[in-house]
């Protein structure tokens, strides 16, 4: 099987998943009481009378059967039209597109930081089982996955922003300040990133660390490692070249499935820190019952999750020594 057919096979699985999720989200939102027009009418300063509301309903196709509405919606979705938010009076795609980079940046940094730390700490604590490092890593991981991240966020704000005044508590950029150079702007942004990134990475690293450690311990006991050692390979080669590669497989699988979970955690953290990303926007849209925005956001987030799954699948294929594409 070549890499291309493998990719195509994974892509074929993604398509029905995408449609299934879109149907679930569409029905869920349309089952809810109150349609977009009533929200629009509620937000309109001019009192709209019933005839106008009915006319608008026809105009927006809300009197059509639900499957017709779904098809129209999904058709527009593929043309990049995510609908129009009556609450914000802006096209949904416009508001989402400025927030995507913020969430992506958070996700990518958190993934990188936690993966690197988890692998290093996981390998060390597996190789030196029952050592002090192992014990510390274990305790750290235990706290990391037992503590609610939003609570850690609040504590972080109290300590580092409130008490010590080292870091800014909210947002992605200090408003109303003119910086002399672009580097100052970056530094300011970096300071805003520090708290949310540390807290998300801490929790995420805890899960990965557990996984790396236990799978590393398992791999280190296997026969092929004994063979590698018997061949007289150095311990470094045995651990990093032979053992780690196999030990990472469950981590990659987990990463693929867990992106949705990480995005959920990010939504909470984004809200805590008022980080202008997709998660915080989703919470706002849900609070304001902004249907089109909510649907558009859900589909974008679903797409992000599916793409991450694909990446994880392909990575798995690349690092698994047993899978050969040719």
């Amino acid at each position, binding site marked *: 099987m070549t890499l291309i057919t493998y990719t195509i096979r994974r892509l074929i699985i993604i398509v029905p998943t995408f449609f299934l999720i879109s149907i679930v989200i569409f029905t869920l939102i349309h089952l809810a009481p109150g349609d977009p027009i009533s929200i629009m009418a509620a937000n309109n300063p001019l009192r709209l009378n019933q005839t106008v509301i009915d006319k608008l309903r026809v105009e927006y196709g809300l009197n059509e059967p639900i499957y017709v509405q779904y098809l129209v919606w999904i058709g527009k979705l593929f043309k990049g039209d995510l609908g129009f938010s009556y609450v914000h009076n802006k096209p949904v795609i416009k508001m989402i597109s400025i927030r995507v980079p913020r969430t992506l940046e958070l996700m990518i940094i958190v993934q990188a930081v936690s993966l690197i730390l988890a692998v290093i700490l996981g390998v060390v604590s597996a190789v030196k089982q029952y050592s002090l490092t192992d014990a510390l890593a274990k305790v750290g991981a235990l706290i990391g996955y037992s503590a609610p991240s939003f609570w850690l966020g609040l504590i972080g704000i*109290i300590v580092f922003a409130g008490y010590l005044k080292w870091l800014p508590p909210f947002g992605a950029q200090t408003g109303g300040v003119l910086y002399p150079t672009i580097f100052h702007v970056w530094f300011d942004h970096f300071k805003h990133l520090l708290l949310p990134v540390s807290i998300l990475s801490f929790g995420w690293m805890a899960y990965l660390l557990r996984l790396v450690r236990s799978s590393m311990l398992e791999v280190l006991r296997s026969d092929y490692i004994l063979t590698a050692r018997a061949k007289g390979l150095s311990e470094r080669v045995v651990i990093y070249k032979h053992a780690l590669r196999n030990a990472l497989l469950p981590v990659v699988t987990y990463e693929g499935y867990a992106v949705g*979970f990480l995005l959920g955690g990010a939504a909470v953290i984004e809200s805590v820190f008022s980080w202008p990303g997709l998660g915080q926007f989703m919470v706002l849209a849900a609070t304001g019952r902004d249907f089109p925005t909510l649907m558009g956001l859900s589909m974008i987030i679903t797409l992000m999750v599916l793409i991450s799954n694909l990446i994880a699948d392909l990575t798995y294929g690349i690092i698994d020594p047993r899978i050969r594409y040719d």
Partner: protein
Amino acid sequence: MNQTKKPEEETEEVYEKSTATQLTTVWKKLKASKLAVFGGVIVLAVILTAIFGVYVTPYGPNDLWVHKQLTPPFSEAILGADDWGRDVFSLLVLGARVSLYVGISAVLLEAAVGLTIGMIAGYFGGVIDEILMRFTDIVLTLPTLMLLIIAVSMFRIRGLTVIILVSGLLGWPFLARVVRSEFLTLKESTFVEAARSVGASNWRIILRHILPNTMSSIIVLLTMDIPWYIFYEASLTFLGFGDPTAASWGILMERGRRFLGTEGWWIATFPGLAILITSLGFNLFGDGLRDALDVKTRAR
């Protein structure tokens, strides 16, 4: 945790043991692990608080102004008072019931769905297995918190039931996979063949013969899933989508968020600590159970 076994422990399990002796062995192993005992004590304490807490707390969630507004902790109010003068300690005790109720209900729902799908897929195999597992894969990738937010906000029912239903109905895929893989191996064993040869029906074999053998992994998984549901409930409530009438830890944190500065740090801090300790308890106990029951399921 404690994945390495001493060789003598491995050979010990070759012969069959009666249920009673098995339980004694498990109990001995559990007792031997300090962390597991610690976790077990926490779990027990949380359960007792949830059951009997209502009867012993000095104040209820509706007892306003029993203290001065924002009384600091470690004074006349042991853990302080919130902005309505309510006793934070009493609210924490009452919150245990909400959290545990959510955690256990959702886990039971997860068990119902996950077991059914895992058992059917693993036992019958073939096309059924293929379809059910693809479906499981899809549900596994769903962003739970996102769907929870949509469901709760759309239906305007700010209730625990919606949270339990949605999170439980989305939380089963991992369990289903584990149960399926155990069924795949166990259905080939001789005791299943024997049961079949005396004419036992498929469902009898599934429920009476194979299922009891998968109980260890199921119990371990479910124990460690309880904190997840507690997290979901707390996160949602914290974001403002919770049940405003339930005296939950999440709602206390949401209220306390406004007083984070200096005037009321304790309102949000203590409920978070309560969640941390509860989840720590379940995780430690689950880890201990896994080692004691010798389950090979990997950490999730």
